């Protein structure tokens, strides 16, 4: 299998080390440039399977606000970020919404749910 080099900026601390990770398929061949253990761990996972927490908002009908802010319950693989956003954009919910309430289950078959991060009451 061919080798691939990923240039990564570490986000573990404000130092922001430049780390280069060489991978071959699903295995890490070489990591260079890290200066701590956490940096090494971060660079490995970032090279093999980069994931992101997604936060955005969903339309609310009849609420005191037109939107409710949301987050994914787990980090989403980077490749699927825009397809997940797409499905979230098509969703509408009805007020009231409580902070922590699940608004979408198993978004894009990822096994990840979408929950409200804010309480939106009904329009008075």
């Amino acid at each position, binding site marked *: 299998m061919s080798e691939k080099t990923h240039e990564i*900026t570490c986000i573990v601390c*404000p*130092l922001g080390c430049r780390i280069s990770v060489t991978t071959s398929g699903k295995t890490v061949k070489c990591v260079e440039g890290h200066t701590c253990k956490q940096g090494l761990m971060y660079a490995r996972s970032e090279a093999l399977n980069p994931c992101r*927490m997604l936060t*955005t908002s969903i339309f609310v009908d009849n609420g005191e606000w037109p*939107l409710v802010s949301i987050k994914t319950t787990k980090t989403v693989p980077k490749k699927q970020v825009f397809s997940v956003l797409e499905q979230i954009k098509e969703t509408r919910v009805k007020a009231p919404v409580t902070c922590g309430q699940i608004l979408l289950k198993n978004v894009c078959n990822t096994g990840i749910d979408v929950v409200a*991060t*804010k309480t939106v009451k009904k329009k008075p």
Partner: protein
Amino acid sequence: MTTRNIDVVIIGGGPAGLAAACTAKQHGAKDVVIFDRNDWMGGILNQCIHDGFGVEETGLSMTGTEYAEMYMQQARDHGVELLKGAMVLSLSNDRELVVVHKKGVQQIKAKAVVLAMGCRERTRWNILIPGTRPSGVYTAGVAQSLINLYNIMPGKNVVILGSGDVGLIMARRLKFEGANIHGVVEILPYASGLPRNVVQCLDDYDIPLYLNHTVTCIEGKEQLEQVTISQVDEQWNIIKGTERTIPCDTLLLSLGLIPENELSKQAGVALDPVTGGPVVSEKLETSVPGIFACGNCLQVYDTVDMLAIDAKHAGEQAALFSQSIKKQKKTTEIMLQAGEGIRYVIPQKIMQTGTIRCTLRVKKPQKNVTIQANSDNKILVKKKQRFVNPANMVSFSLRVTQEILDGKQSVEVYIV
């Protein structure tokens, strides 16, 4: 006009005000009231739908909205009175306030006051960008509130000036909402926001970051049509021949924040020209007895966690003051001064013995340094840092002994 007596009045119901109110209650203040001029509590947190809040404080990465809900619940549980839509019109040096709210105008006599008014965004006029005055030029925070609270998109083709965290987060937010981000322009040779945000907001979406660049012209008749960006040298002089135009309909400005202290000035509170906030003692008490300061009106914080630590301290001290109005005996006062490599340090004054928490910002990024505090040629604190950066506030503890106070020499903090 009705009059009301209150133990601790808190001006501003953002994260600082809420945190201060909770500790004021915990430390025995009977009635604690927060006045906020918005129709909601939580301040700017309500439009911060991204995560990363509360990590240092709770170990959890919450969104700004979740963090606000947590503190509002705590405030309600402690029996804090939250008055929304209540604007403080005036504050005097003997802690009398005039407040206007839905039930009318009220005069308040407070035993202690906590200033927690937050800050404002720097605008185009603070840095005097030449050009016409079209619509489509927004501060990043205003654009954030339009998108996240009111469901209004400012535009489709966006340039962002300033690489502070709000600017970076808005780049990603606009991208998620389908806008084209043509670049983030930063006058400094490095990004001013956290590396985490540079990676996750710009690099992830291939948004270019133009370092050593600034916007030198804004053009458009009704709506913004284009901006000119130019490269600058080390002294921030525009390098001729580097100008290029970027067609766009929206320019977001993320130029930093200015502490909001109009009420503080009214009360005669002395301000520090460097921080833009009040000069405070280790109790976070301002130059006016019984008036305390916390949050972004004291200094602009980079994380809500650091802000909450100090705000809780201010709330506690305000509560203690409200219970012992008896005259404080005149104590010696020594200064804590920013020396070589340090932009500012808070508190600016030390009046009592004990271990105090200090926060500072450095002037420029540096690797492998030691932050030291000296008094009378004696080293009091040595804190090694692998990396310091103006964007990251540094905190340290200082043990103040009677000997230091008696020496009447100021304590100087500097970088080696």
